[in-house]
């Protein structure tokens, strides 16, 4: 059993729903009790979809358990087929139905419907949402892509043709990423054959094989399907994720190479505003800002690179809740000289953020909770999503426009340079002190403790006792602070004060200093500031 306050991912059948809802002409019959119908609201309320997901739930109850839940399932499949007339169906069980072992796949097969019915085995007690989406998409492709065939040579002079794989319903900015990537491909002269799952029909999946190669935007949902297509139809697929200016340029080069065409139409074009904005002198205050990045692997890795290489931040934490992609995230973390955090435990992430004492958190809606509590600015860069992550405006994360969006997303929560300087200079100004947040965010304190209280990094607010999780103990009582040094410490901006305290104490401990004086504080500052 795992104690879970918030969960990063839903169960695997939610992943299947994200695929089914993204497609048209597909219907999903889910053997599940009535409570599981809450899943509809993810799509109709969070994503604001204008139709119910194409899902029929059996909604069995306790009284049915003594009778025949299998019959109930068969009736639901027949009725759904009759009412919705889908091109294909997927059938499966949610967590509770998995326990009663009715074999939805076998039952549906016995009905001998005149359409493909694809059974899904999604182990609800082992796997999670993204895995469920990937598995569902893979099963659909496997069942509907047709028999394996070698890839026919493209007619000379014809436009190269690719599929775009990965976008789903309820995906973080998938809608806008797709527009942006289609535009890039179009500029390069590459035609798009099928986009799947988003907007595809089961029949479309039978035409996937016509493309020369596949563009995989979200490996979390599309990698296994892309591997299947590579093995059976000889289609290569892209490895680069077009997040950030660098990511997008490498992606364009990769795609151009796969298509055998020139990348110049895009790479010589206007590109993104990010490079100039980042070089503009007003951005110098961004230098080496400490950021903590957490999300799904695709977004966490992409955003960490943007943060470090395109904005000049220092990545002090990088992690993912998607264990399937732990290897990739570990490799990326190593490049930033840190160890990756691979966990789906919200409490562990909270502890790691506390310990890293970042100046900016780039995470999911969960990290927004944590950051708010710790008084650290935060931007959301990955699912799990919230209604706010479906903005009305065009806001991709990918491509050059995505890089523009990321520049704004990463910079806006921070204090503007001059304001930060003044804050540092006049720490005792009653209107302009620690407890005051950035003026552009309303000037309200974002939870910074008042003077005299200890730092956010040491102690949570009273209604939130510290976790028993491995929170590093920042206070080492071996070194005592002199009152003067303690007062001097308070003059350091609160968001780096925890770090200054730890550094000073480590410095004192290493040198066996019994008392931390103002001198020690500045000696440590000089030592660590090298």
């Amino acid at each position, binding site marked *: 059993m795992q104690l879970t306050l918030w969960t990063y991912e839903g169960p695997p059948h*939610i992943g299947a729903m994200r695929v089914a809802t993204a497609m048209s002409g597909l219907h999903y019959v889910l053997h599940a*009790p*009535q409570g599981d119908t809450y899943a509809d609201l993810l799509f109709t309320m969070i994503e604001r979809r204008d139709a119910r997901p194409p899902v029929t739930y059996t909604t069995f109850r306790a009284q049915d358990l003594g009778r025949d839940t299998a019959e109930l399932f068969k009736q639901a499949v027949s*009725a759904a087929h009759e009412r919705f007339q889908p091109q294909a169906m997927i059938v499966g069980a949610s967590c509770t139905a998995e326990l009663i072992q009715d074999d939805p796949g076998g039952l549906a097969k016995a009905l001998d419907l005149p359409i493909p019915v694809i059974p899904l085995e999604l182990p609800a007690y082992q796997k999670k949402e993204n895995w469920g989406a990937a598995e569902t998409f893979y099963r659909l492709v496997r069942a509907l892509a047709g028999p394996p065939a070698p890839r026919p040579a493209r007619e000379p002079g014809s436009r190269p043709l690719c599929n775009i794989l990965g976008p789903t319903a309820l995906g973080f900015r998938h809608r806008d990423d797709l527009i942006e990537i289609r535009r890039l491909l179009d500029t390069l002269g590459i035609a798009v054959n099928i986009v799947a799952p988003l907007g595809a029909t089961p029949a479309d999946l039978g035409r996937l094989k016509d493309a020369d190669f596949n563009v995989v935007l979200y490996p979390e949902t599309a990698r296994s399907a892309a591997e299947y297509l590579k093995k059976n139809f000889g289609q290569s697929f892209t490895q680069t994720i077009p997040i950030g200016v660098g990511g997008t340029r490498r992606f364009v080069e990769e795609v151009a190479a796969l298509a055998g065409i020139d990348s110049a139409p895009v790479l010589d074009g206007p590109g993104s505003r990010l490079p100039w904005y980042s070089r503009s002198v007003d951005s110098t205050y961004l230098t080496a800002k400490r950021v903590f990045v957490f999300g799904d692997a695709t977004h966490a890795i992409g955003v960490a690179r943007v943060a470090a290489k395109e904005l000049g931040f220092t990545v002090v934490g990088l992690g993912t809740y998607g264990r399937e992609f732990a290897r990739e995230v570990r490799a990326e973390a190593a490049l930033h000289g840190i160890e990756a955090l691979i966990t789906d435990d919200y409490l562990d992430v909270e502890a790691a953020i506390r310990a890293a004492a970042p100046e900016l958190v780039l995470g999911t809606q969960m990290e927004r909770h944590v950051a708010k509590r710790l008084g650290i600015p935060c931007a959301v860069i990955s699912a799990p999503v919230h209604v706010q992550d479906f903005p009305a405006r065009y806001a991709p994360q990918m491509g050059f426009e995505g890089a523009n969006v990321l520049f704004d997303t990463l910079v806006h929560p921070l204090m503007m340079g001059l304001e930060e300087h003044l804050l540092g200079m006049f720490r005792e100004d009653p209107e302009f002190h620690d407890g005051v947040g950035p003026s552009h965010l309303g000037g309200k304190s974002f939870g910074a403790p008042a003077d005299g209280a200890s730092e956010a990094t040491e102690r949570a607010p009273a*209604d939130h*006792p510290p976790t028993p999780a491995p929170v590093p103990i920042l206070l080492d009582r071996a070194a005592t602070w002199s009152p003067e040094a303690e007062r001097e410490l308070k003059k350091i901006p609160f968001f780096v004060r925890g770090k200054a305290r730890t550094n000073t104490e480590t410095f004192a401990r290493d040198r066996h200093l019994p008392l931390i004086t103002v001198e020690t504080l500045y000696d440590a500052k000089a030592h660590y500031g090298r």
Partner: protein
Amino acid sequence: MNAPLPRSAAPCGGIDLHQEQGQRAVFCGLTGIVWLHRKIQDAFFLVVGSRTCAHLIQSAAGVMIFAEPRFATAIIDERDLAGLADANEELDRVVTRLIERRPDIKLLFLVGSCPSEVIKLDLSRAAQRLSSRLNPVRVLNYSGSGIETTFTQGEDACLAALVPDLPREAETSTPALLIVGALADVVEDQFLRMFSAMGIADVRFLPARRAGGMPAVGRNTRYLLAQPFLTETARALDERGARRLAAPFPLGAEGTTGWLFAAAEAFGVSALAFEAAIAPGRARAETALAPHREKLGGKRVFFFPDSQLEVPLARFLARELGAELVEVGTPYLHRAHLAAEIEWLPAGTRVTEGQSLDDQMDRCRAARPDLTICGLGLANPLEAEGLSTKWSIELLFTPVQGYEQAGDLAELFVRPLRRRALLEV
């Protein structure tokens, strides 16, 4: 003005009751945790269930709350199912971690779910064991599973679990009034003032705002249900010897008057004192309702089944606001508790108990009502088809009971219509 007393209500020819079976689109009982964890300020709700349970509560919890919630899920994994881990030891470990983290918790509910019911995890024994181990923290259990409970039945199961644990009132005590069902704090305070004006001094609430303040109950307890979905709680209170006061529910002016009157009658309040106590509130409710009557009068309303509040709400809309009821869906119709309400519904009102979702949506589309009250999953799809909707969960998250809220309640139904009229896009 509407008749103040249930007994003098206009005669009704009875309702047109239908029962349906099929696909349901309702929450399970776990959803009640979303408001219960705020109502009982030192209680924690630990769901013993699957990742689906955790995902449901966080999704239903208003697309997330920005404070540390007093609820969590102990997610059962394959090791628990395969018997590799002793489920009870695992539960003890999780609860210990939780209580260490939240020393402010005085009452812990272990909440059963579909998976825990199916694998027959005995949470009542676990609760007993943990109660003695964690003393003074009380540990109770109830089931919020979707195979047994629908949405608000979770509150019913929670309150029913509290009853055996309530202090026992002495046989010789004077009669006390107990109000049963989670209400907004402000509504409780209003009712307290009103009962006090009538001379009923000893008024208690279940649930209380704190674990240590739960009301004593005994043979001299007379209770009023503030919510229509408290079947099991009422049964448990009856077993304790308490007596239910039959009444309509305090929604709208008329319902509130009938509800208060049931207490006044049981406690021997004189007609004069009763009238004096309620007159100002009732007059304010009338004032507040008047402008909404214009907007809702003659409007055709369709209820999808959701919270069991449908029948009293439909009665309010029909009788006090002049709306026309196309269909009143309800997950379950408690004929005894709703007797007064059923009697008040216009003759021939179609009431549907249970659900067959696609069929019901067909009926709704065919009827093209002016306003559809439905769950969150259905609201936007129906809006996209041109129907105005009111999402029903808001009726549980908003103070709507009593005279002072009658206008607010009407406004909840008026708002979607007003909004539609305002928008030019």
